[in-house]
């Protein structure tokens, strides 16, 4: 298929998915709708993880930190100050951004696995704080009784899972569209370049640490907004929403999706959360086993995540049939088109340039 044809197919796919996403409340029951709403929220956190892991080269296990900060701040505002959605989303964004700004000095000087460890510490400290600071966070019992949200001033309060899902969908859509637009400006390019060849960027006068600090704060803002949406979607927030397992699933979802692309991050996180929340209802007790199997299979079959699926499958088929000559055959990659495999070229997956495989 020609590149132009592929682009059209991609666009048609995105539009189709959007239509489906809007139609969800009319297609499935209310419980599944609420699962979808939570999935959307976590997918947005996944996008912020992908921004750091894939684009900035800072693999993170700590986005639950700003996510929690945004969630608790919004919940408190919802209970005590205002039930207006705009106010709550802005509160979440501010809280998430502030949280990231406070922790940014810990993160931006490190690279690779050290980032994973530092962010893990940040995430764990946040959960501990959330479960211990009972006067503010409600401790392990969490904050309940959050009043229904009014999206903007003067609008009726949203009642029911369907309305809350649509509200979540709209906010997530707006945030992701804004992110995509920002990343298409030179800002996105600078981030990618810093990830791929930090030394050269520094040598040519770019302040890589500053770019990473901005990216980290921006990712915090996005995670904070997601926190606000979590409060809206489930009208309840507790430390269990921000544990190590959530961080791990988010990171792995992003890796499964192919950490470089926002679409991949959404797809990967959504897949992981769907397996966790939806299959665990269908096959009680087997969700961890299935999720584990999914991770193992993904590690083997799709080195570049779901986003690299078509090229990978093409490569696999080609190597099976032995049709290609040596270069593209044995290792299962198509070296002519698409991105080269991990660790080969500058355009490879983000993780290869991030120092994780140092």
């Amino acid at each position, binding site marked *: 298929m020609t590149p132009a044809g592929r682009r059209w197919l991609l666009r048609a796919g995105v539009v189709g998915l959007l239509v489906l996403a809007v139609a969800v409340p009319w297609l499935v029951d209310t419980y599944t709708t609420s699962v979808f709403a939570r999935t959307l929220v976590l997918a947005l956190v996944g996008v912020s993880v992908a921004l750091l892991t894939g684009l900035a080269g800072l693999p993170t296990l700590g986005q639950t930190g700003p996510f929690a900060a945004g969630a608790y701040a919004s919940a408190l505002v919802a209970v005590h100050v205002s039930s207006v959605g705009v106010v709550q989303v802005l509160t979440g964004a501010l809280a998430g951004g502030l949280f990231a700004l406070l922790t940014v000095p810990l993160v931006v000087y490190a690279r690779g696995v050290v980032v994973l460890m530092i962010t893990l510490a940040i995430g764990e400290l946040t959960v501990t704080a959330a479960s211990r600071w009972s006067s503010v966070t409600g401790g392990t019992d969490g904050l309940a009784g959050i009043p229904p949200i009014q999206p903007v001033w003067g609008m009726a309060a949203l009642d029911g899972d369907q309305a809350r899902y649509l509200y979540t969908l709209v906010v997530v859509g707006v945030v992701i569209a804004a992110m995509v637009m920002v990343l298409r400006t030179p800002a996105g390019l600078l981030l990618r370049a810093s990830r791929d060849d930090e030394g050269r960027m520094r040598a040519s006068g770019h302040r890589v640490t500053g770019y990473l600090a901005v990216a980290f704060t921006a990712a915090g803002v996005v995670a904070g907004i997601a926190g606000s949406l979590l409060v809206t979607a489930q009208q309840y927030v507790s430390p269990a929403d921000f544990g190590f397992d959530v961080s*791990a699933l988010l990171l792995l979802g992003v890796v499964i999706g192919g950490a470089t692309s926002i679409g991949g991050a959404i797809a990967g996180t959504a897949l992981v959360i769907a397996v966790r929340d939806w299959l665990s209802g269908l096959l009680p007790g087997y969700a*961890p086993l299935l999720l584990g199997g999914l991770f193992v299979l993904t590690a083997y079959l799709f080195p570049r995540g779901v986003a690299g699926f078509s090229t990978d499958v093409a490569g696999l088929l080609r190597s099976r049939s032995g049709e290609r000559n040596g270069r593209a055959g044995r290792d299962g990659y198509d070296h002519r088109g698409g991105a080269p495999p*991990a660790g080969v070229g500058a355009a490879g997956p983000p993780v290869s340039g991030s120092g994780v495989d140092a």
Partner: protein
Amino acid sequence: MMVNAAPVLGPVDPYLIPALDGVAYGLLLFVAASGLVFCFGVANILNLAHGTLYAIGAYTAAALLDGGWAMLLVALGVGVVASAGAGGLLAGLLAPVARRDHLTQALLTFGVALAGGSLLVTAFGPDSLPVRIPAALDGTVVLAGHRYAAYRLVFIGVAALLALLLYLAVARTRAGMLVRAAVDDADMVACLGVNPARIRLGVLTAAGALAGAAGVLGAPIIGPAPTTADNVLLLSLVVVVLGGLGSVRGTLLAALAVGEIQSLGVALAPTAAPFLLFAAMAVVLAVRARGLSGRWLRLRPRLGGTA
């Protein structure tokens, strides 16, 4: 015997027992985490299934121990072999992705951990299980005017012996020499004609054996439950980070520090205690990204000092 009002050791006295508990906890973490350190340093694998290897040992202890010495030995043997086997299996599973980045390995090992944890829960049930230690050790001894669990005291002795053996193995044997060399320069070791796949198998099997031993012996301290694997994994990761890499001494110091933070911290500063561990980790990493022992992973060697 009564614990009298005038303490034997003055103002230190109330903290004696927590401090000793910290030593026991720290030595347990050392035996468990040293395997993870070698996975990281020698085979360059981020093994998120390490806690599961410990859990296998702990569940073996719960299933086999009946209060007698013979079964303790049997459980130790079975637990070590089972966990070592699981480690070897993990090495086999990792072989196809050996040349990939850490995140792919994390994906694979976390998947194995999820599936393994699920299988353990299916086999042993969702409750935390009691562990029956040998009757002879199931009492207390009097120590400077305090009662102390005899098992913990014996455990401190045994774990210290294991630590010494591990140190000697790394410092004095040929395998230990290869391990140290591989931490410093894995590529060079490969160039010397040592098969990297075999190193990976050896390291993961040994790591499994250590975690299994820690699991069986440590079951009375960190017992078998569905959260055990996560718990031990997190604590081991903290030890790895604090201890730097590849140095047995650094790992030991870090493990003891974590043990003391966990038990002495609760006694000294109850409100701050839950934060101490990860705050210490964040501070150490921020101040000194190479860990306490001064060596960290070979981070971006091309960029020199920026790591």
